């Protein structure tokens, strides 16, 4: 494959690089628009007169349906759409949702805002599943870990960028519009990122179509029997352990960041702005470091060892934040490093465990259980803080991480007992293939 030197040939490195950029931007729009209410929280309260629970509904209407929807979304990719059409469909749904939401704000109708967020949610998480499939399709056996790490953290980075730019955009729009209209127009502007992502999706689809033709890539489910829902039950135990990590590990990251700002203010006497800066370190670091960790894992293999290592360092970081007054930058930076290491090591595991024609469903399941965990725990974490304080919340996060650690060690044991490929070096994996 690498023998082809022409840059226009799909097997060329340049093509993969272009595809990588497109894949990164595919999810950028979705994460960007997901957090627009968060970035403009005060304006939502003052311009649209939303109370706290109405505001919270903007987020929960997104997450709760996704407990089921992204599983279905993944299944549909495997059974009906295929990855190209699936991506474009989910991307379009996402864009429509963002526009409907903006329109709802523009005419100040709360039910329309909620409807918009709901439509947005249908597309959002399923899109991530589709993109995961794309990544595996293009990079398996090559830079898979690096691409996964980069793609996942670049998406999260979308929400960080959103927090930076929405406020200036809002102020600029406020020169021309007033009241809830200026908020609506600001959201229309934000939805353009989804349009951008949709265009990326179309280009990527064309590239993929061309690559398939020229490289004569076998059709996904040409020879395999069609994938049925009951086949889910035949997924290997290792896959379910990976799902456990997907839930348990991320529970100790996202809710922590959601509640982190006040924690830094209260415990470390940070002013609100500094607290925000510390808090955003995790995503920032992961955007910067993921490609490098991905390359590291591509070179060294042994994904499970890296996953175990990153869970252990995450535990260390949470210990530091919970039980010391050491400057929280230390804890948060090591948290960010561990988090990006885990993302690069964990998600590619699924592609090594599950056959390619079931990947959509598999990633759908991971994403679905993760959503279920996050949706419930965000509420639970708030209750823990109110009743038992931040120390207890940290204990809860540590508990989740121990569960993740146990799951990771079990994967290691099961995999090595069955002479599996998960924890081998790349050369050993190559050796097994031939």
């Amino acid at each position, binding site marked *: 494959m690498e023998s082809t030197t022409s840059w226009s040939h799909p097997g060329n490195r340049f093509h993969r690089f272009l595809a990588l950029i497109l894949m990164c931007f595919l999810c950028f729009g979705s994460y960007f628009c997901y957090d627009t209410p968060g970035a403009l929280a005060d304006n939502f309260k003052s311009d649209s007169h939303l109370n706290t629970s109405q505001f919270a509904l903007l987020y929960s209407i997104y997450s709760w349906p996704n407990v089921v929807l992204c599983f279905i979304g993944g299944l549909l990719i495997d059974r009906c759409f295929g990855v190209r059409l699936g991506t474009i469909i989910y991307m379009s749904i996402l864009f429509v949702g963002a526009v409907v939401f903006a329109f709802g704000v523009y005419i100040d109708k709360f039910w329309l805002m909620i409807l918009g967020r709901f439509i947005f949610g249908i597309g959002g998480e399923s899109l991530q599943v589709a993109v995961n499939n794309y990544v595996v399709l293009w990079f398996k056996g090559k830079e898979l870990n690096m691409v996964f790490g980069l793609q996942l953290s670049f998406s999260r980075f979308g929400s960080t960028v959103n927090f930076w730019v929405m406020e200036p955009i809002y102020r600029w729009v406020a020169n021309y519009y007033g009241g809830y209209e200026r908020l609506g127009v600001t959201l229309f502007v934000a939805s353009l990122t989804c349009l951008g992502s949709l265009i990326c999706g179309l280009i990527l689809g064309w590239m993929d179509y061309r690559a398939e033709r020229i490289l004569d890539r076998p059709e996904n489910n040409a020879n395999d029997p069609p994938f049925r829902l009951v086949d889910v039950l035949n997924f290997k135990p290792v896959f379910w352990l990976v799902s456990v990590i997907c839930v348990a590990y991320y529970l100790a990251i996202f809710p922590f960041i959601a509640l982190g700002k006040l924690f830094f203010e209260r415990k470390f006497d940070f002013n609100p702005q500094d607290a925000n800066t510390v808090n955003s370190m995790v995503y920032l670091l992961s955007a910067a470091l993921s490609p490098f960790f991905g390359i590291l894992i591509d070179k060294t293999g042994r994904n499970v060892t890296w996953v175990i290592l990153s869970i252990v360092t995450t535990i260390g970081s949470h210990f530091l934040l919970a039980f010391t007054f050491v400057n929280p930058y230390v804890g948060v930076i090591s948290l960010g490093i561990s988090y990006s290491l885990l993302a690069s090591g964990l998600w590619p595991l699924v592609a090594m465990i599950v056959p390619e024609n079931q990947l959509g469903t598999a990633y759908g399941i991971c994403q679905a259980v993760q959503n279920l965990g996050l949706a419930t725990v965000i509420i639970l974490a708030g209750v823990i*803080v109110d009743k*038992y304080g931040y*120390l207890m919340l940290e204990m809860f996060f*540590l508990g989740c991480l121990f569960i993740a650690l146990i799951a990771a*060690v079990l994967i290691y*044991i099961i995999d090595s*007992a069955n002479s599996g490929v998960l924890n081998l070096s790349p050369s050993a994996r190559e050796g097994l293939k031939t």
Partner: protein
Amino acid sequence: MHPHVITKIYRILIVVFISSSVHGQNRKITSSLNPGCGECSNSSTLVYIRALGAQDTIHQIWDFTKHLPTVILVVGSINSSLSIQWDRTVPTNFAWSELPLYSFATVIDSLYEYDDLDDSGSFDPRRPYKEYRFTRTSWALEDIVLTDKEVMVQMHGHINNDGLNGVVFIKFDLFPFKDYAAELPHLIHTANSTQVDVSLERLPVSREYNASRFAVHLVLASSEDPASTLHYVMRKSLDDEHTPGVFEIIEIKTPSLFDGQDGGYLQFRPIGYTARERNVGSSTMAHVSSFNRTSLPQRSTVATFYKKQMLLVQDMVVSFGDSGDGFYRQHNYTAWSFTMGYGTPPVESFSVFVVAVITAGLTVPALLALSGVAVVLRRRWARDTLPTRLTNED
């Protein structure tokens, strides 16, 4: 259910833990209302508590008879005793069987209403403020408990002073053992301390102030060198388990305590509440002013108690609020709790649950790592001893 279980575990642990420590010791308490007063009716309230310990006796006098809510804490020998002489319903003399070893008193003598022009929450004497003294406030008894397990009085007073017409609730509470208070901010009480709750309800704000907040004025007196000073100490703790979201504890220490001996103290969290329902959402900041030298309030029970004795007397103002919270009128309610005690201020400790999680957190990963190593070693051994199987596979 969960908190109750935790509390029970605390109690068991604490009883075990405390019996060895001198200053957190349990005491045998006896209490009486208006002791020695023949003509007292419901209208006068003076509670006397005698708390007998292993080495000393702590006497506490909670007084409302001269309008200013007062707690006097007196340390004497085991056999020391107090008798009070009355003129109708007012105490005129406190006679000791022997000279007390130490005493410490707190008087809540007035409220301040201040115009918080820069919306910082804290009281600034350079800004406009009014003082409402309790000198004409009559206190009505709401609730009283006088048992050997708990002594408590709850009073309320209507403030009719320069147009103010609200209600101030004051509660004094003592338990003869160490524990966390049932209510937020879950301060630690010991047999040597009294918890004081103050709440200011529906106080009308002055029309000329746009940013009214209320502050509590305290006069603190101790039988120590008049030239010495009280000390403000803020401790930070890792553990906000008992007061969610609050990591600081403030202690006002008398000079002797600050120098490492036993002495009087106030202990509280820098937090007040803006609703009867106390939770994180209804909490607000409490700010402590610096200390000023002053004298005992005239015609007060402390003045009667101390007569001409040389004392350290200082006052301080505790104010409440946070910028942007809409000032007092937003909730028409402010409450604050502190403990006042003798000895070494109690230090909060990790709960059994936290300790259990930490222990599990350290041992489980260690065990996992060991088992992981064990599995790998076993496999290596198996590979070495069964080479044929592997070659067959290949």
